[in-house]
C-alpha cells in the first residue's frame, strides 16, 4: 500500500487531464450558452467555429515562427490568439449579417435557427479543411513541462513520477482569466448588463431602449473570443484536427445542458462535470487500486468501465439523463 504513489497516479491520469479538458469544455459551453441565452437557439456550428478560429491561429503561429517571433517558454500560439480571435469575429459577424439576421427579422422559430446553424456548420467545416487541410496539426512549442516525471521521481523518491505539462497550466490559467473577465463584463458594464436584460426579457429590454442588434453584435464578438480560445487551448493540449473539433460539439452541448442552458455559471460547472465523468469512466483504475488495496484484493482486470473509444457515450448518456430527469440543468437554465 502506498497512498502517495496512488495520489500521484491519480493526478497524472485523472485530475490534471480532466481539469484541463474541463476548462476547455467550459469555455466552449460558455459560447453555446451565450448564444442560446441571447439569440435563443442551439448553435450547432460552435464546434466548427472553434476549429476555424484555431486553424487561423495556427496559420498566424506558423507565420510568427517563420519570422522568428516566439513567446519564450510559452507557446507562440498565445501571441497569435488575439489575431485569430479578430479574424473569427469578422467571420462570425459576416455570417450573422448574411444568414442569421434574415431569420431573426422573420422571427423564425428556434428550431429553424438550429437547422440554419447546421448549414453554417457545414460551410465552416469545409472552409477550415480548405484552409488548413484535414490532417492532424501539432503547433505547440515552448517549454513542454513545468515538472517532468523524471525530475519528480528524483526529487521525491517516489516510484511514480508526476508530470505537469505547460499546456495544462496555461489552459487552466487562461480559462480562469477569460471567465473572470466575462463575468466582470456581464455583471459590471452597461453593455454586459443590457445583454443579461435582453436574455432575461426581450420585450422589456426593447421597452427600456436596449438596441437588440448591438446586443447581438457584442454576443458574437464574445463568442468568437470564447470559441477561439477554447479551440486553441484544446489544440495545444492535444492536437488540432478539424474532425475532432466537430466531435467536441457533443460534450460541449452536454456541458451546457447539464449546467442549465443560458446560464454562464452552469456552463462552467457542466464543463467540469462532463470532463471528469468522461475521464473517470474511461480510465483504467487498476494502477491506483494496486497502490491502495492490499495485494490480495487487487483485481486481475484493468478496472476500466469503458474503453476510450466510447468516451462520447459518456457525454451522450449524461445529456439524455439530464434531459429526462432535470431538463433545466443544475442551475435552472431554460428548458430545452
Amino acid at each position: 500500500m502506498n497512498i502517495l504513489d496512488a495520489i500521484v497516479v491519480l493526478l497524472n491520469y485523472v485530475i490534471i487531464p480532466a481539469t484541463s479538458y474541463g476548462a476547455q469544455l467550459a469555455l466552449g459551453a460558455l459560447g453555446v450558452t451565450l448564444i442560446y441565452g441571447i439569440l435563443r437557439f442551439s448553435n450547432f456550428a460552435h464546434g466548427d467555429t472553434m476549429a476555424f478560429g484555431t486553424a487561423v491561429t495556427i496559420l498566424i503561429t506558423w507565420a510568427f515562427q517563420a519570422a522568428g517571433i516566439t513567446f519564450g517558454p510559452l507557446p507562440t500560439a498565445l501571441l497569435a490568439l488575439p489575431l485569430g480571435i479578430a479574424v473569427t469575429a469578422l467571420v462570425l459577424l459576416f455570417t450573422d449579417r448574411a444568414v442569421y439576421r434574415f431569420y431573426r427579422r422573420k422571427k423564425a422559430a428556434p428550431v429553424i435557427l438550429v437547422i440554419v446553424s447546421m448549414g453554417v456548420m457545414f460551410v465552416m467545416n469545409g472552409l477550415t479543411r480548405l484552409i488548413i487541410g484535414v490532417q492532424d496539426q501539432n503547433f505547440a512549442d515552448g517549454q513542454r513541462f513545468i515538472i517532468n516525471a523524471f525530475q519528480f521521481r528524483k526529487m521525491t523518491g517516489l516510484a511514480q513520477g508526476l508530470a505537469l505539462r505547460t499546456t495544462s497550466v496555461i489552459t487552466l490559467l487562461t480559462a480562469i482569466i477569460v471567465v473572470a473577465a466575462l463575468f466582470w463584463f456581464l455583471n459590471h458594464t452597461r453593455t454586459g448588463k443590457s445583454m443579461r436584460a435582453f436574455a432575461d426579457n426581450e420585450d422589456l429590454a426593447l421597452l427600456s431602449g436596449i438596441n437588440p442588434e448591438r446586443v447581438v453584435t457584442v454576443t458574437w464578438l464574445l463568442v468568437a473570443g470564447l470559441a477561439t480560445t477554447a479551440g486553441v487551448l484544446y489544440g495545444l493540449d492535444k492536437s488540432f484536427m478539424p474532425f475532432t473539433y466537430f466531435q467536441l460539439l457533443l460534450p460541449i452541448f452536454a456541458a451546457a445542458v447539464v449546467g442549465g442552458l443560458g446560464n454562464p455559471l452552469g456552463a462552467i460547472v457542466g464543463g467540469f462535470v462532463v470532463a471528469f465523468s468522461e475521464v473517470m469512466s474511461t480510465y483504467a483504475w487498476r494502477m491506483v487500486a494496486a497502490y491502495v488495496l492490499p495485494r490480495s484484493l487487487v483485481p486481475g482486470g484493468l478496472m476500466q468501465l469503458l474503453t476510450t473509444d466510447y468516451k462520447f457515450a459518456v457525454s451522450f448518456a449524461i445529456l439524455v439523463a439530464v434531459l429526462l430527469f432535470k431538463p433545466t440543468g443544475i442551475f435552472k437554465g431554460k428548458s430545452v
Partner: protein
Amino acid sequence: MGAPFLIGEKMTGGYGAADILHDCTIAVEKGEIAVIVGPNGAGKSTAMKAVFGMLTLRHGQVRLDGEDITAFSPQARVAKGMAFVPQTDNVFLSMSVEENLEMGAFLRRDDIRPTMARIYDLFPVLKEKRRQAAGELSGGQRQQVAVGRALMTQPKVLMLDEPTAGVSPIVMDELFDRIIEISRTGISILMVEQNARQALNIADKGYVLVQGANRYTDTGEALLADPDVRKTFLGG
C-alpha cells in the same frame, strides 16, 4: 384648457383582420390621472397598447404634446417621454432591483443617481432589497420595481396596464397612494384597472369602455356617482 397632453383620438384597429377598437378616444392632461375601466374583453389593454404604438391603427391619431406620433414605434415613444409598464413580465427576474432600475435608464447618459434616489424615497422597500434579484420579491414589490424601472426614463407620461393585478387589497391601496404621489410631480398617468371603484376614486378622468368603444367618459367622481355606471359596472 387647450388640447390634452396625450391623446389617442378616434382610434380604430386590432391585431389582425378584425377591429377591436372602434372610434375609441383616450386622453390625459398634464399631471392628471386617467383611468380606463370596463368589463373583461372591452379592449382596455388594447386601447392602452394602441396609444403606446403596439398595434397598428387603421384610423385615428395619437398626439403627444400636440405632436402627431401615430407612426412612431414604441421605442421611439419611450425616447419621446412615454413609459409603459406591461401587466405581466414587467421586471427582469434574474437581475437585481438596482440593475432593473439601471436598465430603465439605459437611454440616459446623464447622472441617474438622483432619479434612483427619488424612486427609493417613493418605494423605501426597494432600497432595502436593491441587491436582491427581482424574481425573489413578492408580487407587490415586483410591481414597485416595474413602476420604478419605468420612472427611470424620467417620463412625462406613465402608462400602467393593471398595476394591481394579483396583489392584496392593502398593497393595492398603497400602490394607488404612490401613483397619486407620482402624478403630483407633474407626470401624467394613464392606467387600465380591474378594480374599477378604487381606481375611479383616484382618477381625474375616467373612461368606461365597452366592446372597444367609449361608453361613458367623465371625471372619476362623476362616474362613481352615475347610477347607470354604478349599476352596470360597479356592482350597485
